[in-house]
């Protein structure tokens, strides 16, 4: 990349120093959150340590700033990382890749490539015309909305790193395997005819020369866009969680979403398809379900189904895919999610 005037190293060094100082302040504040929440709840508000209300209030005043701070840091970081992974570059990396290795790479790139659900179709066309195999394209399209930084931060903040890691691992696995299966089925002829006639058009690749100031600005824009949109969900979700944490008896959901209810996993997947929500809206809900005694596998299957399979997406994809391929896509991904649900209910 061409070196421009303002990325000369004194400016870079200054940016680095400001960044490190900011990170230090962030960490200092973050570490004090728990003691601050306890002080506020029991000393300032004067709740008694054993009361339900006190527990609920402490939970809320601790979790809200914690999750929001994590969200700001991670969205900013990922926003900057994303400036290095444009869809154009991702397409170039995947073109000519063979299946299996291509499926794995596509699913991973799905995490870091900027993607909004309305660019699914243009992106699909770009990939297919560039010679990215159909199955590899699907691995990308499945992973991109399902495994993302918002889902991971919220899962980490509300349910701990183990659940976040499980979600990320199994989400990638579903995307890789489902894409591979779709590739094996040889369904290229089930794309709309005009898609097949579309000639590869390589001259649209524009490389933008971004300075570090540009990248940081884009990271800040990401924080403003994303955190500005989801903070209300987060607070509402944590408030509900706090209420449940303090008041609802444990095991409340065990009968209908517990391990012993075998039918609850397929039911969760089916109910999730017509529901269309982002990670920010769904994590607080599954947090509540888990606390009431729902099984982890059932709940993860529900979350994946809501995010990865949706009717609006199917309607958009219908413009480029024939019904048989859409049905196959929904069926293969749905089966993958189902297996993930059962797997966790059995081993955990």
């Amino acid at each position, binding site marked *: 990349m061409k070196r421009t005037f303002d990325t000369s190293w004194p400016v870079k060094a200054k940016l680095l120093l400001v960044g490190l100082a900011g990170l230090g302040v962030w960490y200092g504040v973050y570490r004090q959150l728990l003691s601050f929440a306890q002080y506020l709840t029991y000393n300032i508000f004067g709740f008694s340590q054993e009361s339900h209300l006190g527990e609920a209030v402490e939970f809320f005043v601790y979790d809200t700033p914690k999750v929001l701070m994590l969200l700001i840091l991670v969205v900013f970081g990922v926003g900057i990382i994303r400036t290095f992974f444009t869809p154009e570059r991702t397409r170039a990396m995947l073109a000519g890749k063979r299946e299996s290795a291509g499926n794995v790479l596509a699913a991973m790139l799905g995490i870091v490539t900027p993607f909004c*659900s*309305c660019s699914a179709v243009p992106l699909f066309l770009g990939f297919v015309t560039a010679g990215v195999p159909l199955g590899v394209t699907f691995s990308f399209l499945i992973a991109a909305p399902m495994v993302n930084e918002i889902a991971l931060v919220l899962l980490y903040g509300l349910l701990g790193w183990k659940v976040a890691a499980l979600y990320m691992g199994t989400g990638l696995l579903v995307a890789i395997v489902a894409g591979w299966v779709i590739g094996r089925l040889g369904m290229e002829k089930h794309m709309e005819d005009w898609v097949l006639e579309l000639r590869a058009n390589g001259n649209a690749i524009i490389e*933008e020369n971004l300075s570090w100031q540009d990248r940081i600005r884009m990271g800040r824009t990401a924080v403003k866009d994303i955190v500005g949109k989801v903070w209300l969900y987060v607070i509402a979700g944590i408030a509900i969680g706090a209420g449940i944490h303090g008041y609802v008896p444990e095991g409340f959901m065990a009968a209908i979403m517990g391990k012993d209810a075998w039918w609850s996993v397929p039911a969760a997947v089916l109910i999730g398809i017509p529901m269309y929500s982002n990670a920010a809206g769904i994590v607080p809900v599954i947090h509540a379900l888990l606390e009431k005694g729902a099984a982890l596998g059932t709940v993860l299957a529900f979350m994946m189904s809501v995010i990865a399979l949706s009717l609006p997406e199917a309607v958009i994809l219908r413009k480029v895919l024939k019904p048989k391929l859409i049905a196959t896509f929904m069926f293969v991904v749905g089966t993958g999610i189902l297996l993930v649900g059962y797997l966790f209910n059995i081993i955990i």
Partner: protein
Amino acid sequence: MNILVLGPGCPKCTEAEKIVKTALQEAGVEASVEKITDFQEIAKLGVFSTPAVVIDGEIKCVGRVPDKNDILGWIKG
């Protein structure tokens, strides 16, 4: 000058169109602004991440909402 804003109609694409119009007004430049929402048309232009802005046949930005200053630079330059 002929400006195309490419995008199926999500909030980001609408925002891109709005910013282009604001920039034109600010610069006092006369230009036709056309919104392209058809996927086939978008693909034919060789664009596959939206929103995108095309000025007089030249692709100026893809996959993001451009900054107003970016646009001012393009239409004046």
